[in-house]
Every structure is written in structure tokens, then in C-alpha cells.
């Protein structure tokens, strides 16, 4: 798993130092875990413009609750839980969760000139088209899909972080890819 401390035995020491207010230990925690925390938050909210603020809230909560962490070995799952809860609260506040669009994304992606999404994609807006499709995924499909692509985690690692069985992670990835294929079938040509 990426961003994991090279020395697992040092993790309890690192956490203990951070709990005591050691600035260097806190910096190291942020450096080692900040990347995947952002990915977890993005997996929930689906928009990068919301991630920074939510991550700020996450770390604020982490520092206030870190003394309550009794088992330092559970730091990653604990961090993931804090990040997901903060992102879910922010998402509920904004009520930005989009329904699943099984019909082609074409209708919503056509610009004012009425061009098809394929034409739009050919004009260099493919990335925004793809990102909007990811944003349109249901959150329980988007989370494992984003973690798989951004953090290169295995099914087991994703399952441990999200509290899901491996089979469920695999099924949700299959369905995420199926939904994306339905939404973008005119935009992507093999």
C-alpha cells in the first residue's frame, strides 16, 4: 500500500509523539497520509474543488481527536473514517449527489451549439466529460473506483479502508465500470 510508513514499528511512536504535540511527528503524519486522505474525500464528494476545504476540516478533527486513538496500528482506518465522515457531512450539506444516469450522458453534455458528446470530446473536453461521469456515479461505486485508480490499492486494501468484503469491492468496481460505459459509450472509441 502506497504512503505506508516504511517501518510499521515506528508508527506507534509517531502517533504517540503527534498526540503529545510534537510538530515534526505531526508534519510526518500529514506528509505520509495527506495524499490518500484527499483521494478518500474525492471519492465521496466527486469534485476536486470541494476537496481542499474538507481536507482542512479533516485534519482539524484529527488533531482534536488524536488523543482518543488508543491503537496506533489502526491509524489508517481511523483516518479514513474521519475523512469519509467529514466528506459525507459536507456532501449532505451541499446535496450534490447526482442520481444514476443510465441513459447516455449525451443529453446532459451537449453544449449550446448542440454538438454530440463525441464531438465535444474530440474538441479536447474529454477530461471534463470523463470527470463529470465519475461525479455522476453513486458514491458507493465511486469510492472504490477512485481509490483503485488514484491510490492503486488492492481489493483487500480498499475493503479494509471502506469496511467492505473483498467480493463487494470487486462487484462495485464492476458496476462502476458498467455505468461509466453506459454513460460514455459514445465518447470513448477503442
Amino acid at each position: 500500500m502506497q504512503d505506508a510508513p516504511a517501518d510499521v514499528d515506528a508508527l506507534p511512536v509517531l502517533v504517540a509523539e503527534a498526540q503529545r504535540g510534537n510538530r515534526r511527528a505531526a508534519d510526518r503524519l500529514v506528509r505520509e497520509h495527506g495524499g490518500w486522505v484527499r483521494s478518500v474525500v474525492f471519492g465521496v464528494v466527486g469534485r476536486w474543488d470541494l476537496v481542499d476545504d474538507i481536507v482542512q476540516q479533516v485534519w482539524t478533527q484529527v488533531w482534536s481527536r488524536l488523543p482518543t486513538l488508543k491503537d496506533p496500528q489502526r491509524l489508517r482506518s481511523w483516518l479514513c473514517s474521519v475523512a469519509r465522515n467529514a466528506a459525507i457531512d459536507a456532501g449532505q450539506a451541499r446535496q450534490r449527489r447526482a442520481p444514476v444516469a443510465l441513459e447516455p450522458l449525451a443529453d446532459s453534455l451537449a453544449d449550446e451549439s448542440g454538438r454530440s458528446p463525441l464531438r465535444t470530446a474530440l474538441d479536447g473536453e474529454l477530461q471534463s466529460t470523463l470527470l463529470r461521469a465519475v461525479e455522476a456515479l453513486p458514491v458507493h461505486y465511486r469510492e472504490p473506483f477512485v481509490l483503485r485508480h488514484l491510490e492503486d490499492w488492492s481489493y483487500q486494501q480498499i475493503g479494509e479502508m471502506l469496511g467492505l468484503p473483498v467480493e463487494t469491492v470487486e462487484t462495485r468496481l464492476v458496476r462502476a465500470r458498467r455505468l461509466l460505459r453506459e454513460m460514455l459509450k459514445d465518447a470513448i472509441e477503442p
Partner: protein
Amino acid sequence: MSSGSEDLEHLISRFLDREITARERSTLDETIRSDPQAARLFAQTVELDRRVGAALRAARERAAAPPVEPAGAAGLHPPEPGLRPRRGPQRAVAPASVALQRHPARLPIRWLTPGLACVWHSRPRLCDRRLPMRWLTLGLAASLAGLFLLVPPQRGGPGGRSPGNSEGVRAASLFAPPVLGDAYLPDSAAAAAPQVRLEETERDWLVIPSPQPGEFLVVEVNRTQIRRVGIQQDF
């Protein structure tokens, strides 16, 4: 969707996630070779997954904040014990979080009355003692509110008591109607009783406009008697 195509999707997904076993890989290769539709599904899924993954990683790179120096990232680190939080130039702080960096006492002070603004402008003397400004502000606001509520201004109707007013002069706060005294107008047979419906109100008085201009109807809730009143001042 048929179980066969769903199995194929699972195989393709496991292939993309590098979770596929050797036996599953040979099954997948055989299926792709023998079924053109399966081959097309495989190619579509692989291409889509590649492009979406690349788009996600590129978006992450664009959205990633610059590296935060430990000394400049207030809010990302716990405050050192015994030290006040730094207020130097901040880096890598999202715009919405900048508001959290502001001094908490500045914002509300400027919205208060000029009297309190004078207190603010004289703050060098107060700040010498390092008084918490927000508590001083709250205390002053509470004192002013108490003055309004506990020491109501004395108001009386013109000409003293009205013989028909058995209640006498009564002090009222700013939130209750004034003492009416002689302001009561003689009852008019032409005046129609207003159709007022009250439901679970704790008010003692209601003031509603009368059909006559410049007149208001003062309705005492716990009584059925209604009188028309001419009010010369705005309360």
C-alpha cells in the same frame, strides 16, 4: 444481464485491477478469441478505464495544493503547547478556510453601534490588560438589552387618566403597547368588530390596523372587549 456477460465483466475488471489469477486469465483470453462481442467489450472497458484513470490523476495533479511548509500551515498542525498560533502569511490554504484564519474579534465589532465602536477604538488601553474583546462586547450588549427590558421608558397618554380606564397608568416596555389613557375613542356603532382569530398565543395585546386610517385596534387577548384607539405616535 446474462450471467455469462456478468462473469466476463468480472474477469475484465479483475484483469484491469491486476487481481486476476492465471486460470482466470486463460479463460478470459479464450473468451476474447472466440467471441467478437466479448472482444469488443474488453477493448471498450480497457480503453475507458485507461482514460478515466488518466483524467482522475491529471485532475488530482491540478487540484493538489503546493507543499505546505510546517511553519506556515496553520490549521494542518496542532498548536504547540504554550505557544499562540502563528498568523504569518499562509500557504496552501483553500479560499474558504481563509476566513478561519481571521481574528475572531474583528468581524462583529465593526457592526455594532457607534458607542461600542468607541470602545473598540479605545482598545489600546483595554488591550494592555489583554481583555478578551468578544466577552467585553457580549457583556455590553447584554447590559444594553437589560436596560431596555428592565427599565422601560415611562410613557403616558395625553391629559392624564381616562375615567373609563380602570386599569390606570401602567409602565410598558418597548415591546408592549403604550399606556393609552385618554387615547380611547368613543365606541362607534358603525365600527364593526374585527374578525380576529387567535390560536395558542401568549401575547397580552394585539395591535392591528383599523379600517379607519390612523387608527389601530388594540385587542387584549384575555378579554373579549375591543376598543378603537387613535395613536398619535409610532411605537
